[in-house]
Each structure stands twice: as C-alpha cells, then as structure tokens.
C-alpha cells in the first residue's frame, strides 16, 4: 500500500529499551489511544458488526394479521440480495458511471497538476485556487446548482439545455458525472500536485541537461514518481463512486429518469424506508465488502504495475 509508514522514524529511544517485553509509559499509551478507540469502536466497529448480525434475521408474521416477529433467517436475505435485479442494475450503473467519470476526472487532475508544476504556466496560484474551489461546495448543493443549470427554463445556456435532454434517461448519468467531476477534480489535482512538488529539483534539472523537453520529463520522470498518489486518488474514486447517493438523490427532484433505486446506496435507503431493515442491512454488508474488495484489488494490481 502507498500508505505505509516508515517504521524507523516511529520507534522511540531504541538505546534505552532493554527488552522487548517492557513497555514504557503504559498509562500514557492507554490515555492517548483509548478515547479514539472508544468512538471508533462504538461508531465504526459495532455498527458493522450489528449490520452483519441483523442481516441474518428476517421478519415473519403468523397469518396475515399476526404481530411481526424477527426470526433467524440464515442467508435468506443474501439470497434476496443476489437475486435482486434492482440491486445489480444499480451496481452496473455505478460501474458505467465510474468508467465515464473517473478517467476524465483523474486525467484532467493529472494534466492540471503537471501544468501547475511546469514552467510553462503563468498565474499558477490563481488557477490552483479556482480549480480547487468547487471542492468547498457540498455535493448536495453542487447538484442543486447544476440541476438549475440543466433545467431549460433557468439555464444560462438555453440553446444547449433546450435542445439536449441533459436530464433525460440517456444523458442524466453523464450530467451527474459532470457534477461529481466538477467537485472532485481540483481535490485530486492538489493531491497529485503535492506529490509532484516533492520530486527533487536536481532530478528534473538533470533530465533537462540531457535535453529532455517538458513533455518527456512529465511522461518519463514525473508521472512514474507520482504513481502512488494517482493510485491513492483512484482508490478514493472507487470508494466514492460505489457510495454515490447525494447527487442522484437531489437529481430526483429535477429528473424523473432517476428512479429511487438508481445507485446501490439508494437501494439501501429505499429498502430501509419500506421498512425492511434486515434486507437493507444485507445490502449494506454486500456493498461495504464489494467496496473493500474492489479498492484492495485495485491497489494490488496498480502496485504491481507501478512498482514492478
């Protein structure tokens, strides 16, 4: 993983620690760690455990009017999850979304970062701030704003909005992807840009001495060095895409083409408002697992590519 910590820096006072089994400052360690561990346990670990637990139950009624009872259902909720066409079409929808949105988002972020890092561009801090500014706009508000820009009656570009069905079932996924890219491109640009700034100047200068142009330097030196940062942004993009909820939920108020089960998280939400908590819990578990597996696999594959 690119997120490993150098262990050498982290070990205190190696010369004064006589044996492995003596732990110094036990009280302090507990005091520093306990508060975080408690909230992490209560609001991260326990909910995950509880969702898994809930997903093994189902609601049964005795007769049509009997009181509902929660009984052990084994894997029956998971059978429903894997048999649900709504759920799978929502998954394939976010995968399509990923393919149309992320290459553009990360590609542009990389180009912006390389330009900000090159001597070619003037007015760097202006561009950096302007491109990053949308990150300060909450997804819900960005979606409301772009929604108004897409609606023909309000759009400042009526020629486009009236003739292209931006909110129709064919294009609405692209329209949502545009909102997400508008918000996150600048954030990814900054992560890549920070990595670029850490490249030693001598390395770039040596390449210039050898007659390499800016494009060649970018392609052969800069991009390989920032590959870990690109991977990190890629993983965040996977997590973000699978969680897609805010923007399409807002778009339901503008576009009838976005149904209540448009993305996996919207399936979870609409199932829990039925309410069918056990099934919704099973959806959550599958979604969380899928997210972890996908981002982990992505890390593994790209690490092999990036680091040989």
């Amino acid at each position, binding site marked *: 993983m690119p997120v490993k910590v150098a262990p050498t820096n982290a070990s205190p006072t190696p010369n004064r620690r006589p044996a492995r089994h003596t*732990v110094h400052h036990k009280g302090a360690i507990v005091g520093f*760690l306990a508060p975080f561990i408690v909230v992490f346990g209560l609001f991260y670990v326990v909910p995950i455990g509880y969702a898994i637990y809930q997903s093994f139950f189902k609601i049964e009624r005795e007769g049509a009017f009997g009181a509902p009872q929660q009984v052990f259902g084994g894997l029956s909720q998971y059978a429903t999850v894997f048999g649900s066409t709504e759920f799978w079409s929502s998954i394939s929808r976010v995968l399509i979304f990923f393919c149309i949105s992320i290459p553009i988002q990360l590609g542009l972020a990389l180009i912006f970062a390389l330009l900000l890092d090159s*001597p070619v561009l003037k007015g760097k801090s202006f561009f950096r701030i302007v491109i990053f500014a949308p990150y300060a706009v909450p997804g819900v508000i960005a979606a*409301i704003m772009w929604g108004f820009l897409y609606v023909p009656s309000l759009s400042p570009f009526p020629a486009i909005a009236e003739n292209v069905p931006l909110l129709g079932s064919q294009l609405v996924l692209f329209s949502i992807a545009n909102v997400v890219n508008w918000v996150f491109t600048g954030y990814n640009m900054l992560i890549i840009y920070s990595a670029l700034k850490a490249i030693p100047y001598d390395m770039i200068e040596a390449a210039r001495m050898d007659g390499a142009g800016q494009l060649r330097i970018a392609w052969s030196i800069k991009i390989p060095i920032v590959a870990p940062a690109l991977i990190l942004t890629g993983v965040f993009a996977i997590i973000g895409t699978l969680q897609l909820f*805010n923007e399409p939920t*807002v778009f339901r108020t503008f576009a009838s083409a976005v149904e209540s089960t448009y993305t996996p998280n919207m399936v979870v939400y609409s199932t829990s408002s039925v309410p069918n908590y056990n099934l919704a819990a099973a959806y959550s578990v599958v979604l969380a697992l899928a997210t972890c597996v996908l981002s982990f696999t992505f890390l593994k594959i790209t690490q092999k590519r990036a680091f040989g």
Partner: protein
Amino acid sequence: MSGGAAGTTRHRRNPGGATSENPISVGGATLFMVICATYFLVPIWWLFVASSKSRSNLAASDGLWFAQQFDLWKNIGDTVSFDGHLFVQWIVNSLLYAGLGAAVGTLLAAMAGYALAKFVFPGREAVFNVILAGVLVPATALALPLFLLFSKVQGVDTFWSVFLPSTVSPFGVYLSRIYAAASVPDELLEAARLDGAPEFATFFRVAVPLMIPALVTTFLFQFVSIWNNFFLPLVMLQNERLYPVTLGLYAWNSQTNQAPELQTYVIVGSLISIVPLILAFLLLQRFWQSGLAAGGVK
C-alpha cells in the same frame, strides 16, 4: 518557482532546445487553463448572479449577468427570516456539527496518531491496520446500522445521533501518525521527560505545535466531510430544526413544486452556505497544503 532563474539561463545557453518557455506552449497552456477555469467558475458565478434576482427576473433575464434590479440583500433577508429563521438554525446546526465534530475528531485522532508514532507496544501495528481499514469502509454503509443502534437507545432524531458518529476520523489518525513520526524528534520528547514533564503536558507543549499542519489538514477535511454529510442526517433526523444546511436545502428544493417562492431561497441559501468553506480553505491554505503533501506523498 525555485527553478525559474536556472531555467532561463539554461534556455539562453541552448536556444534551439525545445524547452517549455517556447511561447506557443505557454500560450496553449494558458488558453487551456483559462477555458478550464471558466468551467469551474461559471456555476458559482451563476449562483451569485441568480441570488441577486427576483423570481420573475430569474427566468426572464440573462443567466450570466445581473438584472436591472439588484435584489441580493432583499433576497438574503427573505431567505434568512423565512419560517422563523429556519435557515439560520440550519447554518448554526451545520457549524456545530462540523466545527465541534471536527475539533473533537482532530484532537482524538492527533492523540491516537501520536501514540502510534512515538510509543512502542505490542499490537501497535495491528491497532493501526484496523484503523486504516476504517478509511476504506464506506461511511454510508454505517448510516443504517447506526440508525438501528441509536433507535435502541431512543437516540434517533437528536443532535447527538449526527454529532457523535461524525467525531471519528481514521484518516486523521493515519495523517497524524505519519506527521508525528516525521516531524516530532524523539530527542525533544526525551528532554521533556528528563525534566519530569507528564506525558500529556509533553504532548500538548512539544508535539502539538510541531504537528500543526497535520492537525489543520485533519480539521479542515473532517469539517468538509461533516459539512457535506447528507446521508446520515437524512436517515437520523425528522425534526427540521435539527437539520444541517445540506439536508435543509434539499428539503426546500423538493418542495418547490408546491411552494415556488422556495426556489429563490434555495439559490440564496446555497450561496450563503458555500461562502464559509471557501473562505476557510483560502485563509488556511498555507497549513493544509503542507499537511496534504505529507499525507499524499508518503
């Protein structure tokens, strides 16, 4: 850029070399960036212009320029006072959820990250890996089980149901650990210990000042993620007086068919609610950029 001077001398010595200072690439790059910057700015500009218009002018006038009548202040007044200052309540709620939540979250993450960086104890890596795995867990997958758990203790539809889960920042622990390991020298801690300072005093007086960039970064990104949070409040809250501003504006926007005057309030409210974050990012730029560099590179 530090390399500017060296770059020009180099260029002068080798005028035939295809270096970047070539005016065509400079012009091309600038043009490209201007077009892209326009794309990123236009929606915010539109929001500002639209906020200054009455409802009849909104559809009637050019979307990217002001109408003859400048109604921004009147619109802000109407939005703020509508329905018993509901919008003010939402802004206050968001500030509390995000401000307090990020402050508490940053403190907890900083202490944990510091302990993981500067103390050796059995199971340290295991604890860190579990926390790191938490970064990969989608926050929205937690919302539903959190709702079920809070309803067991009658905690749903309260301030705490949104506030407490927001104080957990596994990413903050990760960043604090990296930053503490790299920028807090063991010698300083040893010196403080030899002076007999208690561990907590050492942390606050010696380590925290050195960790400021990481702390500001953690705070800001935690603040943004709580400020942007929508799913958790949507699941938890019924009482609109407890809504954060995102949920409130969403609720207004869903009612514009029945109450068209809400449309102006949604537009003005959106403008008001993005201003604090943009300001915070601009003012604290110096801090979070170095913090981000530490987190992204290593």
